[in-house]
């Protein structure tokens, strides 16, 4: 168990920058989710930590050991692959024992450790099975057991649940979290699913085009996205593009006739994105008063979708915006309604 420090890590494939000056610290015993769309460099990052990708420049420290140029087999990382990568010609037991045999453990200790690992991942009794005789969820558990049994300094999970169906994914997500806390093992969890990242991680790192867009606690990254990409990636689906205006009192933009402040780096005429989430809007059929910290938009209900606990409405505003809004009551289509958004729920970039 150790703290992982990454400094200025860069990797280029031809013209493509897979990793672009990535700085990152993952505290000992914590679980960091690396989140990003496909092609954002998250797999390259985890493969660089495991030693399968040689970075162009930058350094990786595991504890106080510089492992940047260490051979992958000497790094003492343990990786769980998206495809599980269980060896099909070996039984569950042989798969798990592989790493232990390499460490020259005694047969008694190996047997004991296998038992411990299988109980840990809740798969006792399957020692003699072949991987092909297991379900996807079971295979993933074996892969996890195989990685954990060698006492790695850091656990690398590369989209471990993305090949499983939703129900098993939810369960395994919490089991992984529990195991990680139980063993207090420094863990990097790669995922493209923002909900998965937020629910499991102590800290979230959001990557785009090989760059760290934002790193912080799940709460921080969700409620204070640093730029429009982060906001949109974390589920803020309503994006309104407006123009920066200027008068004697300073820069501003107009949203539904209401004055909104804009970031300081804007100039008059620049485009401004105003972003908010569908479930952070209040919907009402009467026109409420706009106040200092509450903005009001008028619109017409255009379409609706039933989500079980609530409805999601598509609202068209007179300005021509199409917005998504969640509400827990049914409202007939074509109703005239009002959207109220509190100031702190509006992200303006």
């Amino acid at each position, binding site marked *: 168990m150790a703290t992982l420090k990454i400094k200025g890590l860069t990797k280029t494939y031809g013209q493509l920058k897979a990793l672009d000056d990535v700085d990152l610290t993952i505290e000992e015993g914590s679980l960091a989710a690396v989140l990003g769309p496909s092609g954002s460099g998250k797999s390259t990052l985890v493969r660089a930590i495991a030693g*399968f990708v040689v970075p162009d420049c930058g350094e990786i420290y595991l504890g106080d050991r510089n492992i940047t140029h260490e051979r992958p087999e*000497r790094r003492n990382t343990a990786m769980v692959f998206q*495809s599980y*990568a*269980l*060896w099909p*010609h070996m039984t569950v037991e042989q798969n798990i024992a592989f790493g232990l045999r*390499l460490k020259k453990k005694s047969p008694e200790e190996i047997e004991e450790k296998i038992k411990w690992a299988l109980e840990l991942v809740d798969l006792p009794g399957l020692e003699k099975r072949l991987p092909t005789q297991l379900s996807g969820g079971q295979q993933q558990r074996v892969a996890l057991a195989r990685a954990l049994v*060698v006492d790695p300094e850091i656990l690398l999970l590369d989209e471990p649940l993305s090949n499983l169906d939703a129900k098993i994914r939810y369960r395994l997500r919490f089991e992984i979290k529990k195991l990680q806390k139980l063993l207090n093992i420094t863990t990097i969890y790669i995922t493209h699913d923002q909900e998965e990242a937020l629910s499991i991680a102590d800290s979230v790192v959001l990557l785009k085009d090989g760059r760290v867009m934002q790193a912080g606690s799940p709460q921080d990254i969700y409620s204070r996205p640093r730029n429009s990409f982060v906001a949109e990636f974390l589920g803020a689906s309503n994006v309104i593009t407006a123009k920066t205006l200027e008068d004697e009192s300073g820069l501003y933009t107009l949203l539904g006739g209401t004055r909104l402040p804009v970031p300081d780096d804007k100039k008059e005429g620049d485009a401004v994105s105003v972003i908010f989430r569908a479930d952070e809007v209040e919907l009402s059929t009467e026109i409420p008063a706009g106040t200092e910290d509450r903005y009001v938009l008028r619109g017409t209900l255009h379409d609706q979708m039933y989500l079980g606990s609530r409805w999601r409405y598509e609202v068209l505003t007179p300005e021509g915006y199409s917005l998504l809004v969640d509400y827990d009551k049914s409202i007939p289509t074509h109703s005239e309604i009002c959207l109220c958004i509190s100031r702190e729920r509006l992200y303006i970039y």
Partner: protein
Amino acid sequence: MQDVTQSNWLKRTILRTIAITLIGLAIVGPLAGTLLWSFAEKWYWPSVLPQEIGLKYWRTSLSGRSQVMDSLWISLVIAVIVVVIVTLVSVPAGYALARYNIPWKRILLVIFLMPQAFPQLPVFINMASIFYRYNLVGTIPGVVAVHVVISLVYSIWITTAAFKSIPAVLEEAAINLGASRLRVFFRITLPLAMPGLIASSIFVFITSLDEFTGTFFVGAPFIQTLPILMYTASMGYNMQYASVIAILLTIPALLFMVLLERFLKAEYISGLGV
């Protein structure tokens, strides 16, 4: 209405029966002829069937130190040596071609194909004249060399495909847990590639056992492999011996073909596109 469908059905059945019989005859016919000849003690033209049938030729062929048995041993020894040499070359070569980005990979594979691309006779005559300089003509090493050149191309293509069908991530998982490259190869890669390697070896074994032209130019008359002996026998109108040898040569090929079908998985065939 029913009559029409019934007559259609009848027509189809008759046509099918004829087609299947013809195909069957085309395949089994020559084999059946050979089988008959091997048991014929007297068979004069124009009789359809042999006048006398017996085991005489089988008995003399298979008895202790007959020429057939000598040739069988030489053929088997050569085939085994060829399999060993070809495997030792094609396993590392196939692995390298499958895993590493070798410059000129395609050209390299085409070069291995070269001896097959040209007409066989000039290639073998050339080989014989080269081998003559090194005193390899008429020796077992000479014949082995010819067989190795012929089978290497198949073997390298099949082993490359076999290694390619193993996901690299299985090797990475082992390295990640601390295994050296050598250990990964022997504990993970090789066992997983084994069906393909066995298929390739079977292929090479049969190719060597049946090889005639190259052996004829480089080995004959001193190295009498089974196909060479069969040729000599049939040239001397000794159809019975020739037929016995033909059947002896068919048995391992048939046996191995059954095995081959089990080992040569569709994944390997799809892996052939390099």
